């Protein structure tokens, strides 16, 4: 065997375990999900082929549309907020500050905490009967907010807990980026008479473009997939006010066991993910070309 053939053989065998795992446990079930989305089935035994019925049903399903709107709203609220707060904290942390290391540790701590535990802390804080905010409002004589029975308030509580959980990660990525920006650029801008706000806007933010791009994609993908926090904190309620696509798919597939329909929701979610990230990708490329 030639050295070249040996190298190729080694390449295939070294890559094989990973490719096998991905093929069997990601690509195969993806194909499976697409096939199941054309069936009516409860998950046990053979399903019946129903063509595009599940998709037709989706279009007419008000809960599906509610879940779609909620997912979009969640994404639109969480992505910019997590990035802006993350950037703000990274800027503060990057400046001379006492106990920087300690503060950084505290801010990224939620990364180590599970979504379930985060959601339970959310329950502890937003519970209407004995939650921290309810008690605090009572003591301070502030008006009570119906965090659990009022739709928009429940939605807000989910967003707030998500930010609590996600901001540290955004900060960490920005912090890594900030440390790569050379001081000369800032000095040059300062000599040109730019104030600190202008320097932030025209020097720092453009320099952080790779990080921002990475975070936009990641936050969008994460938001489309949000599950633990909603599932545990609100269960999608009150009255579907916090139902998102994934919790709806879970309920449909594993509670009411309408798995064909659940698979169809998954396929739609995938399509939306691909379209949105694809568009974002193209916008990024175009911007790079014009610059």
């Amino acid at each position: 065997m030639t050295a070249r053939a040996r190298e190729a053989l080694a390449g295939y065998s070294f890559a094989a375990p990973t490719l096998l795992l991905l093929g069997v446990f990601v690509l195969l079930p993806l194909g499976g999900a697409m096939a199941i989305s054309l069936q009516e089935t409860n998950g046990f035994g053979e399903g019946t082929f129903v063509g595009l019925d599940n998709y037709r049903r989706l279009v007419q399903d008000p809960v599906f549309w509610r879940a779609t709107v909620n997912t979009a709203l969640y994404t639109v609220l969480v992505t910019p907020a997590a990035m802006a707060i993350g950037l703000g904290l990274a800027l503060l942390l990057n400046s001379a500050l006492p106990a920087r290391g300690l503060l950084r540790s505290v801010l990224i701590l939620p990364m180590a905490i599970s979504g379930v535990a985060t959601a339970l802390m959310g329950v502890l804080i937003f519970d209407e009967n004995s939650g921290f905010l309810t008690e605090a409002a009572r003591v301070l004589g502030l008006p009570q907010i119906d965090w659990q029975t009022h739709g928009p308030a429940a939605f807000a509580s989910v967003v707030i807990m998500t930010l609590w959980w996600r901001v540290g990660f955004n900060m960490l990525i920005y912090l890594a980026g900030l440390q790569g920006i050379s001081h000369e650029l800032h000095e040059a801008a300062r000599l040109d008479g730019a104030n600190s706000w202008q320097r932030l806007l025209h020097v720092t933010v453009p320099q952080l473009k790779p990080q921002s791009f990475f975070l936009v994609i990641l936050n969008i993908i994460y938001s489309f997939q949000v599950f633990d926090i909603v599932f545990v904190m609100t269960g999608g309620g009150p009255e579907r006010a916090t139902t998102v696509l994934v919790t709806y798919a879970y309920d449909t597939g594993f509670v009411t066991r309408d798995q064909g329909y659940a698979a169809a929701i998954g396929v739609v979610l995938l399509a939306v993910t691909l379209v949105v990230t694809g568009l974002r990708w193209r916008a990024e490329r175009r911007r790079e070309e014009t610059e």
Partner: protein
Amino acid sequence: MLLAAVVILFPLYWMAVVAFSSRSSLSGGGFRLWPEQTTLDNFRRVFDSFPVLTWFGNSLAIALVTSVIIVLVNLLAGYAFAHLRFPGSGVLLLVALSTLMLPVQVIMVGLFRLVTDLGLYGSYWAVILPTAASAFGVFLARQFILTIPRELIEAARIDGASHLQIFWRIVLPLSRPLIAVLFFMSMLQTWNDFAWPLIALRENALYTLPVGLLFLQGQFGPDFGATMAFALITVAPMVLVFLLAQRWFVQGFSRSGLR
């Protein structure tokens, strides 16, 4: 900045306060920022009613086995994609990386069916294998291993070392920081994973901690003391490890091609 730190720490602190407060002081209402009397009653109640230690063991076993598999197979693949030439490697890498966009939630119905067909449903492997199928580590490993000088590998090859020997004697020892970061991230992710174990595990005795936590919340209902005591048990190990390990975790993160 201090405000941000307080906002981050407060829910954790509050969880601990509730976990160490007696049941009567919690149900009595009223507002206080620290427990009236610290008590271990909540912890006792949780340990008496649920197989907490078994769940802890399940979580640890599943997280360890999954992480070892991830590190091993991703490093092998990372080396192949970084330094070995074989036809189709570009396309294969692209296919592998594109699965990053594909969350388990999208395929959960298909995966459930597959795992059932393979006879794995309800077993540890039903959780381990799909979780170990992760392309993020391949990306990380390839980026890192690319920084190992080609000359080093060429020299070993001229000395007659096989590809496996090169991997074992040169790539692995040089990849220690990568292994540490990848292993730690996999542990963290697997330990905290919820949606898939919830679907894949059927018996109470095989639950992982997050799944058990939800189960317990359903049983105890509004018993916040017990729920938070258990949440604290779930969260504490990873928080401790994270605090100890976060210095090189942060370094590894910023070194590994994210910029």
